[in-house]
């Protein structure tokens, strides 16, 4: 295998700098905030960066994209056992005596050149359907949140592997010298039900060096931990302090012949720059009124999905490699009709505005936007199917995601499910296939982006995955 170039580079650099030991400082220099002109490419890259809109909890594909008009006549009737097959159920409904089919209560219409079905809950998304590629045939083995999200984001159900963003940072480095390569933004949904927890491992670096882990930007307090000067310390006082530290570090550098010291001096200067660049990024004061209008009424509310979408665009403009959004609260075990509407209200307009905004600024061509949850939801009702209310349990056998930009063929619909939206009927796409495809668009061969750990070469796609060439532009 060919080791990722960043690794080769750091080793060479280490020799070049005549460093001792196996410190990873040189590597950090080479990647956390490196302006990386010579990133690794196995194949010609179509996308330079990713904006991943993760809908945490598992949105209902049945009520949003995967239209099944035929279910109306099954509404309230028992899901035929032949449809279910041997598919395992979660412990939440495996004891449920009746599994009544719950047809979607929302209206659907076709949109865009590909004629994609989009439900009335997502009118803005419908408006940009011409830019999107819907995959109806995604599937996963996991049926619970923790393993399912972990699989989507790290390629393995059990913890311990690097996240997608960490792999990308490792493989491609950063294009910005004063922002991290991998940024995470989190918002909480409006659904009345409690939001499931996230896990720091989802943006962790696993066994990759820890400088590749995602940096979670927060909407209150310091956007980056420890960014602000302490109370009573003016920028001048701080600069004086930094100058003294640099001078003292230089004495040691001359004496010790240790390249780590030079790296440390550089990192302190980068920290100083981040104190300006991060607030610049977070401050949306310079944005036009029309931009706020486009992203919707929540765009001025820090920490909302809308505000995060706007930030995502600003991060993309600044060359941040991997921008991961999480929107929590998509776990509609009950109160689906009301809660799903609320969740969609959170994300619909901002996500569509993001696509338009990127396009208008010429960024959509080389930015890959992904909209996905960790699984879909069941055709049958969880709990009682009531006239105005019901829920849906987790369903991994088929669900829908959409992709946009980054060389993905726009205005397409790929893959299909059976009449009950229970199993994939054609063109199955496993989570590993999706990840292989996303890496491919970044110019990375998923079988060659590897890291040796405990004697084995690990990949994001484990030992699976194939690029879904049919959706490439």
């Amino acid at each position, binding site marked *: 295998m*060919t080791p990722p170039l960043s690794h080769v580079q750091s080793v060479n650099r280490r*020799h070049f700098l*005549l*460093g001792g*030991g*196996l*410190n*990873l*400082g040189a590597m*950090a220099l080479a990647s*956390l*905030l490196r302006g990386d002109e010579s990133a690794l490419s196995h194949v010609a890259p179509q996308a330079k960066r990713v904006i991943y809109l993760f809908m945490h909890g598992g949105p209902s594909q049945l009520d949003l994209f995967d239209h099944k008009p035929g279910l109306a006549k099954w509404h309230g009737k028992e899901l035929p056992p032949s449809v279910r097959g041997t598919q*395992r159920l*979660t*412990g*939440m409904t495996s004891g449920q005596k009746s599994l009544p089919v719950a047809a979607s209560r929302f209206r659907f219409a076709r949109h865009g050149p590909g004629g994609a079905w989009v439900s009335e809950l997502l009118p803005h998304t419908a408006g940009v359907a011409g830019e999107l590629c819907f995959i109806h045939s995604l599937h996963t083995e996991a*049926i*619970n949140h*923790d393993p399912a999200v972990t699989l989507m984001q790290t390629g393995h159900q059990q*913890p311990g592997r690097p996240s997608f963003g960490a792999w990308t940072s490792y493989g491609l480095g950063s294009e910005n010298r004063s922002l991290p390569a991998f940024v995470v933004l*989190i918002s909480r949904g409006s659904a*009345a039900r*409690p939001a499931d*927890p*996230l*896990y*720091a491992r989802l943006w962790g670096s696993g066994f990759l*060096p820890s400088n590749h882990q995602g940096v979670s930007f927060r909407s*209150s*307090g310091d956007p980056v*931990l*420890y960014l602000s000067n302490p*109370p*009573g*310390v*003016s920028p001048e006082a701080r600069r*004086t*302090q930094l100058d*003294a530290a640099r001078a*003292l*570090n230089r*004495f*040691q*550098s001359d004496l*010790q*012949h*240790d390249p*780590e*010291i030079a*790296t*440390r001096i550089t*990192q*302190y200067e*980068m*920290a100083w720059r981040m104190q300006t660049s991060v607030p610049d990024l977070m401050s949306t004061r310079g944005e036009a009124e029309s931009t706020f209008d486009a992203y919707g009424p929540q765009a001025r509310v820090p920490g909302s999905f809308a505000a995060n979408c706007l930030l995502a665009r600003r991060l993309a403009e600044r060359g941040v490699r991997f921008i991961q959004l999480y929107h929590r609260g998509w776990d509609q075990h009950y109160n689906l009709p009301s809660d799903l509407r609320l969740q969609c209200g959170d994300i619909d307009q901002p996500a569509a505005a993001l696509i338009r905004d990127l396009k208008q600024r010429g960024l959509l061509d080389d930015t890959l936007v992904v909209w996905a949850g960790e699984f879909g939801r069941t055709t049958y009702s969880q*709990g009682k199917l009531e006239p105005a209310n019901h829920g849906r*349990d987790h369903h991994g056998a088929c669900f829908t995601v959409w992709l946009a930009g980054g060389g993905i063929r726009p205005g397409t619909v790929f893959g299909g499910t059976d009449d009950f939206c229970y199993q994939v009927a054609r063109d199955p796409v496993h989570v590993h296939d999706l990840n292989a495809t996303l890496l491919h668009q970044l110019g990375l061969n998923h079988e060659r982006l590897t890291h040796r750990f*405990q*004697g*084995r070469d690990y990949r994001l796609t484990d030992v699976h995955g194939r690029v879904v060439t049919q959706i490439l532009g």
Partner: protein
Amino acid sequence: MVRVLFIALVSLVLPAAKAESVDFNNEVRPILSELCFPCHGPDKGARKADLRLDMIEAAVRETHPGVHPIVPGHPERSDLIRRLSSRDPEEKMPPPKTGKNITPSQFETLRRWIADGAVPDTHWSFKPVAAVEIPRSLSGVSQPVNPIDAFVQARLAGQGLRLSPAADPATLLRRVSFDLTGLPPTSAELDRFFSDSAPDAYERAVDRLLSSPHFGERMAVDWLDAARYADTNGYFGDKTREIWPWRDWVVRAFNHNLPFDVFTIEQIAGDLLPGATPEQRTATGFNRNHMVTNESGVIDEEYRVEYVADRVETTGVVWLGLTVGCARCHDHKYDPLSQRDYYRLFACFNNVVETGLVREESPPPILEVPDAAAERALEALKSQLADAEAGFDSALRPHREALARWEKHLTDQPPLPPERSLLSRFGFEPMEETARSVGTAEDVDGVVGRAARFDGMQHFELPADTPLQADRAWTIGWWMKPDGALSGILGKVEPEGRRRGFEVYWQNGRLHVHLIQEWGIKAVELVLSEPVTGGRWLHVAIRHDGSGKASGLTLFVNGRPAAGEVRRDTLDGPITNAEPLRIGRRDDGLGYYGLLDEWRLHSRALGNDEIHRWWWDQQSRAILAAGPAKRDATQQALLLEAFLEERGDETLQRLHLTLGKTREAVERMRGKLPRTLVMQERDAPRTTRVLNRGQYDQPGETVEPGVPAFLPALPLGDPPNRLGVARWLVSETQPLTPRVAVNRLWRQCFGEGLVNTVEDFGLQGDAPSHPALLDWLARRFVDSGWDVKALLRLIVTSATYRQGSIPSPDRLADDPENRLLTRGPRFRLPAEMIRDQALAASGLLSRRPGGPGVMPYQPPGLWTDVTYDGEERYSADRDDGLWRRSLYTFWKRQLPPPAMQTFDSPTREKCTLRRPRTNTPLQALLLLNDDTYLEAGRALATVVLEEAGDDEQRLRAAFLRVLSRFPTEPELGILRTLLERQRGGFKADPGSARDLVAVGASPVGRGLDPVELAAWSLTLHTLFNLDEAITRR
């Protein structure tokens, strides 16, 4: 029979190698392993063309007519060589699609090996640890201080190199202090060391460090990483668990220098030792440190299998240095470990009394671990209890007949709870229509009929017009069996804004009752004074007299009034709202965990006797329904209590009261005892099957417990179980454990192991840089009785360790990564030491050992996203928890302490044996702006300002405390200028000075001028930010 090559040759004596011959282990096998074994190696599932190249017998056999992969002595006739050099993509090996290629020098190595006769050899780490002769000392080099140097010098001499001169004393003392205690030397220790001119001054300093109580704390940090120790459960809700007594056991074990073989046996199977002590059982927490899940909906067996697999993998990598986990789904691709081997080992860890889906925050099996004093007190109480029981029993004997009559009467005429003014009731029965179900609650046995089980995911709703108002009298009551620390029981409350309404929640055994007009401002807040124990049925009633005052609100637990603590009593208006009454949830957020049954609402204030009867009626109904044979102890006690109240005489009642109080005292005492997760075997062992692809639901053939076939067998007489495995790991014939263990200790002192891949001693791992030294150390370790302190002493007193770490330029060229050990080791300090140094140097450090995890400063709000619905918040301690050693910091897996993570600590989700050492701007921000370091700057400033002296003397003293040396003139100049400029700045803005010195909870020295203190604080804070401060050279 086909013999596996690695085993076959263990006992063969290889002919003395010719100078030009190829070294199979170091040169040939790595090529075969990397390029060929994935398809032609031990994994039969992945094997192509039925050809394996890891066994010579198979590799020389004819595969097709006239075709032999290897013909010893004849590379030109060997098909392997032909295929490796082929240009035909159909023929070429490795196949082009693997992306792997053989280099010309690799090809030549293989060719020569075959030409020399294709003699294989056992992989080095699987060979027995034989006695190694110490190289004789060489002429022209300095006398070795100990045998380590002889080995290192022998290797250097071959390259025409020699050791570097020793480091200066200050550097050396700082280095060894960090390596052995994780703390910098104090000024006094430095002074003593500088003035001690005895030849063994250094050795005595080492002995002092080895006997310091901080030695165990330093050693524990690496072990906690290996053992994936944390204070939370890891998956999903990441709830808090109690297993810190295990962590404290580790610290004590290192401090007492528990021999490594005992250390091993007790952690893996202490519970199975004859007459296992509580200490030995506590030690088994090692293999309970894995994560567990409370995510409702997971499949129990799926996760239980994960837990067992985690134990097997962790044990395999920590002791054997083998990536055992690779054989879970298929035979190992590189090492001779079959999938069957894996499951034989798995069987040894597969008998724990446990479930995959856990309900408790500290999932069983658990052990109470009282300290000696608590244990004595508990014993005394228990003997009092025995006396009280005996006394009561004999007094009761004459009344037995009356009791039976009374019980019959009760059964014939069952009592009823009060019915007058009953407005609403809900029994949690299936199909009951009173309340609307939101989410699905599990239907289980209850106090009366069925009850509902909640896990925060469901609730029931009653109409918004349920009259729970501030100006009305009412009484509500229900049965509950709560588990978990925090639960919303019921609420009719607005989710946002003023949160007007009524709510009841449970927190650590206390009920909180709120009548809210404006949250936190106009409200009645009443909290149960004495916590009650969860996990059992309780009847709770709340009575309100219509006054809207705290005095009009009474709590009842099990029919009796219970004292409440008034936290607020400021309500002066209505609490009416349009929200439904939610049972099983506080508002739209916090849900309930546990069981609920029989909810009732009366539209008046019931009398105490009525409430008592309400409880008793429902309670007795359940008891009587159970029948005498099926009643548990609590039910029997309750029945008896009722009888005594109604019919008992005074003596009997008094004796019974004493008995009850003693019982309660015992319970209370036990409730306060620390507990810890331990291993415990099931009576009947589980059957273990090979799991196809490692999947829990694809069982294959049954296997018996055992150890991998390619390693030495279990010692005769040892049982094939966990205890047998534990003893086997440290048995005389075990080649891996001692090598792996000494390599880790070496890494602790040198930054890298003699084998770089400390976690992989298999075929894909790195070869040792000094194989003879590694074996000599391993042998010595075993022969010394696995004496950890002795081995560390040997390492750190060697001349090799004591070398200066500044390389000369030519050395860098000869030995860029210091694999030859031509200079002393230097590397950035681990996260814990960076923080502990700041605390120690500034005098803030609390040296108190052990106890539950503590919570030092951390930016606010970090836990919100990683807990279920943001229900847990981090709040920093208000005592010395802020300044304890970092290994005691509370470890939340889904949000590890940022001060640790920023400096490369693992998450502790999985076993980690090597932390990376990065150098990032986020580290700079942490050291510059975290309260810990600012406070340390102020504390250090206070220390030097309180001593007599001028600026220069003070700067020198502070510099010594942080960097273990005095500053040079130019350094002093820079610091003086910095101090002057900060003085000027703060003088101009005294408000800023006050703000800065207010950071941190430690008291600000009295009588110190804030301007002066601030200037000094920021100046000395700079020292913690120097590369030198966070590097050990």
